[in-house]
Protein backbone atom coordinates (compact mmCIF):
# COMPACT_ATOMS: atom_id res chain seq x y z
CA UNK A 1 0.00 0.00 0.00
CA UNK A 2 2.97 2.31 0.47
CA UNK A 3 3.50 2.07 -3.32
CA UNK A 4 -0.10 3.22 -3.87
CA UNK A 5 0.65 6.25 -1.72
CA UNK A 6 3.86 6.97 -3.60
CA UNK A 7 2.02 6.75 -6.93
CA UNK A 8 -0.64 9.09 -5.56
CA UNK A 9 1.96 11.62 -4.44
CA UNK A 10 3.63 11.46 -7.87
CA UNK A 11 0.29 12.18 -9.54
CA UNK A 12 -0.60 14.93 -7.06
CA UNK A 13 2.69 16.62 -7.88
CA UNK A 14 1.61 16.54 -11.54
CA UNK A 15 -1.54 18.40 -10.55
CA UNK A 16 -3.88 15.40 -10.48
CA UNK A 17 -6.05 14.84 -7.41
CA UNK A 18 -5.70 11.17 -6.47
CA UNK A 19 -7.78 9.09 -4.09
CA UNK A 20 -6.64 5.69 -2.80
CA UNK A 21 -8.72 2.71 -1.68
CA UNK A 22 -7.06 1.00 1.28
CA UNK A 23 -8.05 -1.71 3.75
CA UNK A 24 -8.46 -0.44 7.31
CA UNK A 25 -5.86 -2.84 8.64
CA UNK A 26 -3.22 -0.71 6.94
CA UNK A 27 -3.87 2.45 8.92
CA UNK A 28 -0.47 2.13 10.68
CA UNK A 29 1.33 1.62 7.37
CA UNK A 30 -0.45 4.62 5.87
CA UNK A 31 0.54 6.77 8.85
CA UNK A 32 4.16 5.60 8.69
CA UNK A 33 4.34 6.15 4.92
CA UNK A 34 2.76 9.59 5.21
CA UNK A 35 5.44 10.54 7.75
CA UNK A 36 8.21 9.22 5.48
CA UNK A 37 6.85 11.20 2.54
CA UNK A 38 6.48 14.37 4.63
CA UNK A 39 2.78 14.47 3.82
CA UNK A 40 0.41 16.70 5.81
CA UNK A 41 -1.04 15.07 8.93
CA UNK A 42 -4.49 15.14 7.38
CA UNK A 43 -3.35 13.52 4.12
CA UNK A 44 -4.89 10.13 4.89
CA UNK A 45 -8.19 11.58 6.05
CA UNK A 46 -8.46 13.67 2.89
CA UNK A 47 -7.19 11.21 0.29
CA UNK A 48 -7.71 7.65 1.48
CA UNK A 49 -11.02 5.79 1.49
CA UNK A 50 -10.88 2.94 3.98
CA UNK A 51 -12.38 -0.47 3.33
CA UNK A 52 -13.07 -3.15 5.94
CA UNK A 53 -10.41 -5.84 6.09
CA UNK A 54 -10.24 -8.37 4.54
CA UNK A 55 -11.57 -7.77 1.06
CA UNK A 56 -9.95 -10.79 -0.58
CA UNK A 57 -12.60 -13.22 0.69
CA UNK A 58 -15.60 -11.18 -0.44
CA UNK A 59 -17.82 -11.87 -3.43
CA UNK A 60 -18.14 -9.47 -6.34
CA UNK A 61 -21.52 -8.34 -5.06
CA UNK A 62 -20.14 -7.71 -1.58
CA UNK A 63 -17.21 -5.75 -2.97
CA UNK A 64 -19.44 -3.63 -5.16
CA UNK A 65 -21.65 -2.91 -2.18
CA UNK A 66 -18.59 -1.66 -0.26
CA UNK A 67 -17.98 0.85 -3.04
CA UNK A 68 -21.66 1.78 -3.30
CA UNK A 69 -21.62 2.63 0.41
CA UNK A 70 -18.52 4.80 -0.02
CA UNK A 71 -19.07 6.46 -3.38
CA UNK A 72 -20.09 9.76 -1.77
CA UNK A 73 -16.84 9.68 0.19
CA UNK A 74 -14.79 8.86 -2.94
CA UNK A 75 -16.50 11.64 -4.87
CA UNK A 76 -16.05 14.06 -1.98
CA UNK A 77 -12.37 13.29 -1.54
CA UNK A 78 -11.72 13.76 -5.27
CA UNK A 79 -13.35 17.18 -4.95
CA UNK A 80 -11.74 18.10 -1.64
CA UNK A 81 -14.88 18.25 0.41
CA UNK A 82 -14.92 14.81 1.91
CA UNK A 83 -17.45 13.38 4.25
CA UNK A 84 -15.82 11.68 7.23
CA UNK A 85 -14.95 8.07 6.60
CA UNK A 86 -16.16 5.34 8.92
CA UNK A 87 -12.79 5.29 10.68
CA UNK A 88 -12.69 9.05 11.15
CA UNK A 89 -16.32 9.21 12.17
CA UNK A 90 -15.68 6.76 14.98
CA UNK A 91 -12.77 8.89 16.20
CA UNK A 92 -14.55 12.19 15.91
CA UNK A 93 -17.72 11.04 17.58
CA UNK A 94 -16.09 10.41 20.93
CA UNK A 95 -14.13 12.97 22.96
CA UNK A 96 -12.69 10.32 25.29
CA UNK A 97 -8.91 10.16 24.56
CA UNK A 98 -8.64 6.50 25.54
CA UNK A 99 -11.43 5.58 23.17
CA UNK A 100 -9.93 7.77 20.45
CA UNK A 101 -6.61 5.98 20.91
CA UNK A 102 -8.27 2.57 20.71
CA UNK A 103 -9.98 3.55 17.47
CA UNK A 104 -6.75 4.99 16.07
CA UNK A 105 -4.81 1.77 16.62
CA UNK A 106 -7.60 -0.54 15.46
CA UNK A 107 -5.66 -1.47 12.35
CA UNK A 108 -2.52 -2.22 14.34
CA UNK A 109 -4.52 -4.28 16.83
CA UNK A 110 -6.03 -6.32 14.00
CA UNK A 111 -2.56 -6.95 12.56
CA UNK A 112 -1.28 -8.14 15.94
CA UNK A 113 -4.26 -10.44 16.41
CA UNK A 114 -3.57 -12.00 13.03
CA UNK A 115 -0.11 -12.90 14.36
CA UNK A 116 -1.44 -14.28 17.65
CA UNK A 117 -1.01 -11.31 19.99
CA UNK A 118 -3.41 -8.76 21.42
CA UNK A 119 -2.87 -5.16 22.42
CA UNK A 120 -5.29 -3.65 24.92
CA UNK A 121 -5.14 0.03 25.83
CA UNK A 122 -6.35 0.35 29.40
CA UNK A 123 -5.75 3.85 30.68
CA UNK A 124 -4.85 7.45 29.94
CA UNK A 125 -3.49 9.43 32.87
CA UNK A 126 -1.31 12.53 33.02
CA UNK A 127 -0.76 12.32 29.29
CA UNK A 128 0.47 8.73 29.39
CA UNK A 129 -1.38 6.04 27.52
CA UNK A 130 -1.00 2.62 29.13
CA UNK A 131 -1.88 -0.86 28.04
CA UNK A 132 -0.95 -4.52 27.90
CA UNK A 133 0.47 -6.59 25.09
CA UNK A 134 -0.73 -10.16 25.45
CA UNK A 135 1.50 -12.50 23.48
CA UNK A 136 -0.24 -15.85 23.08
CA UNK A 137 0.24 -18.53 20.48
CA UNK A 138 2.06 -16.46 17.91
CA UNK A 139 2.11 -17.63 14.32
CA UNK A 140 5.90 -17.62 14.06
CA UNK A 141 8.20 -20.10 15.79
CA UNK A 142 10.49 -17.64 17.53
CA UNK A 143 8.04 -14.84 18.29
CA UNK A 144 9.86 -12.51 15.94
CA UNK A 145 6.63 -11.63 14.08
CA UNK A 146 5.64 -9.52 17.11
CA UNK A 147 7.57 -6.29 17.40
CA UNK A 148 9.50 -5.70 20.63
CA UNK A 149 7.40 -3.82 23.18
CA UNK A 150 9.56 -0.70 22.98
CA UNK A 151 9.03 -0.47 19.24
CA UNK A 152 5.32 -1.04 19.63
CA UNK A 153 5.21 1.80 22.16
CA UNK A 154 6.83 4.13 19.65
CA UNK A 155 4.49 2.95 16.90
CA UNK A 156 1.39 3.45 19.04
CA UNK A 157 2.62 6.90 20.05
CA UNK A 158 3.16 7.89 16.39
CA UNK A 159 -0.32 6.72 15.44
CA UNK A 160 -2.13 8.24 18.41
CA UNK A 161 -0.28 11.55 18.66
CA UNK A 162 -2.27 13.29 15.90
CA UNK A 163 -5.48 12.29 17.70
CA UNK A 164 -4.56 13.34 21.26
CA UNK A 165 -2.84 16.69 21.73
CA UNK A 166 -1.99 16.03 25.38
CA UNK A 167 -0.23 12.70 24.75
CA UNK A 168 3.18 12.56 26.46
CA UNK A 169 4.02 8.91 26.09
CA UNK A 170 2.95 5.28 25.80
CA UNK A 171 3.73 2.55 28.32
CA UNK A 172 2.95 -1.04 27.42
CA UNK A 173 3.28 -4.06 29.70
CA UNK A 174 4.08 -7.34 27.99
CA UNK A 175 2.49 -10.60 29.12
CA UNK A 176 3.74 -13.86 27.63
Amino acid at each position, binding site marked *: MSCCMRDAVT*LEARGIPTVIL*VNEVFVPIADATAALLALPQDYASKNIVWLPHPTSNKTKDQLERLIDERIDEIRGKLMGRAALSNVERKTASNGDPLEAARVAIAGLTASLRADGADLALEGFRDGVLSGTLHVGNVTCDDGSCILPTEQLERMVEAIVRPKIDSLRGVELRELR
Partner: protein
Amino acid sequence: MSFVVHDPRGGRIATAPSLAARPKALAGLKLGVLDNTKEQADILLGRAAHLLAQDGAKPTFAQKPSFSRVAPPEVIEQLAMCDIVITGLGG
Protein backbone atom coordinates in the same frame (compact mmCIF):
# COMPACT_ATOMS: atom_id res chain seq x y z
CA MET B 1 28.14 -12.67 10.75
CA SER B 2 26.53 -9.31 10.15
CA PHE B 3 23.34 -8.41 8.29
CA VAL B 4 22.23 -5.33 6.46
CA VAL B 5 18.56 -4.60 7.11
CA HIS B 6 16.82 -2.45 4.52
CA ASP B 7 13.75 -0.40 5.33
CA PRO B 8 11.05 -1.74 2.94
CA ARG B 9 9.15 1.55 2.98
CA GLY B 10 11.65 3.31 0.72
CA GLY B 11 13.35 6.65 1.11
CA ARG B 12 12.33 9.55 3.26
CA ILE B 13 11.28 12.82 1.65
CA ALA B 14 12.40 15.89 3.55
CA THR B 15 10.10 18.52 2.10
CA ALA B 16 6.35 18.25 1.90
CA PRO B 17 5.15 17.43 -1.63
CA SER B 18 2.50 19.67 -3.12
CA LEU B 19 -1.01 18.34 -3.44
CA ALA B 20 -3.23 19.14 -6.41
CA ALA B 21 -6.10 21.60 -6.39
CA ARG B 22 -9.47 19.87 -6.34
CA PRO B 23 -12.11 20.28 -9.05
CA LYS B 24 -15.55 21.68 -8.19
CA ALA B 25 -17.38 19.04 -10.24
CA LEU B 26 -16.60 15.74 -11.94
CA ALA B 27 -18.67 16.13 -15.11
CA GLY B 28 -16.51 16.00 -18.22
CA LEU B 29 -13.31 15.17 -16.33
CA LYS B 30 -10.97 12.40 -17.45
CA LEU B 31 -10.87 9.84 -14.64
CA GLY B 32 -7.74 7.70 -14.45
CA VAL B 33 -8.19 4.32 -12.78
CA LEU B 34 -4.88 2.80 -11.65
CA ASP B 35 -5.18 -0.88 -10.77
CA ASN B 36 -2.19 -2.10 -8.76
CA THR B 37 -3.11 -5.76 -9.56
CA LYS B 38 -3.91 -6.72 -5.99
CA GLU B 39 -6.66 -9.29 -5.66
CA GLN B 40 -10.11 -7.72 -6.13
CA ALA B 41 -8.69 -4.29 -6.96
CA ASP B 42 -10.20 -4.49 -10.45
CA ILE B 43 -13.69 -5.11 -9.06
CA LEU B 44 -13.51 -2.32 -6.49
CA LEU B 45 -12.02 0.24 -8.85
CA GLY B 46 -14.28 -0.84 -11.69
CA ARG B 47 -17.36 -0.26 -9.59
CA ALA B 48 -16.11 3.15 -8.47
CA ALA B 49 -15.36 4.10 -12.08
CA HIS B 50 -18.81 2.95 -13.15
CA LEU B 51 -20.49 5.11 -10.50
CA LEU B 52 -18.28 8.14 -11.14
CA ALA B 53 -19.04 7.82 -14.85
CA GLN B 54 -22.66 8.42 -13.92
CA ASP B 55 -21.49 11.83 -12.67
CA GLY B 56 -20.08 12.52 -16.13
CA ALA B 57 -16.46 11.48 -15.50
CA LYS B 58 -14.80 9.66 -18.39
CA PRO B 59 -12.80 6.67 -17.14
CA THR B 60 -9.58 5.41 -18.62
CA PHE B 61 -7.97 2.32 -17.12
CA ALA B 62 -4.31 1.64 -16.39
CA GLN B 63 -2.56 -1.19 -14.61
CA LYS B 64 0.90 -1.32 -13.16
CA PRO B 65 3.01 -4.47 -13.39
CA SER B 66 3.27 -5.10 -9.66
CA PHE B 67 1.56 -3.82 -6.53
CA SER B 68 4.86 -4.01 -4.70
CA ARG B 69 6.52 -1.39 -6.92
CA VAL B 70 5.68 2.16 -7.83
CA ALA B 71 4.05 2.70 -11.20
CA PRO B 72 6.61 2.87 -14.04
CA PRO B 73 7.04 6.16 -15.92
CA GLU B 74 4.92 5.04 -18.89
CA VAL B 75 1.95 4.36 -16.63
CA ILE B 76 2.38 7.71 -14.88
CA GLU B 77 2.51 9.41 -18.29
CA GLN B 78 -0.69 7.65 -19.32
CA LEU B 79 -2.41 8.92 -16.18
CA ALA B 80 -0.91 12.38 -16.48
CA MET B 81 -3.43 13.02 -19.24
CA CYS B 82 -6.25 12.60 -16.70
CA ASP B 83 -7.87 15.23 -14.50
CA ILE B 84 -8.43 12.97 -11.47
CA VAL B 85 -7.28 9.49 -10.46
CA ILE B 86 -8.44 6.70 -8.19
CA THR B 87 -6.09 3.86 -7.30
CA GLY B 88 -5.84 0.81 -5.09
CA LEU B 89 -5.88 -1.56 -3.56
CA GLY B 90 -3.97 -1.03 -0.38
CA GLY B 91 -4.93 -4.42 0.94
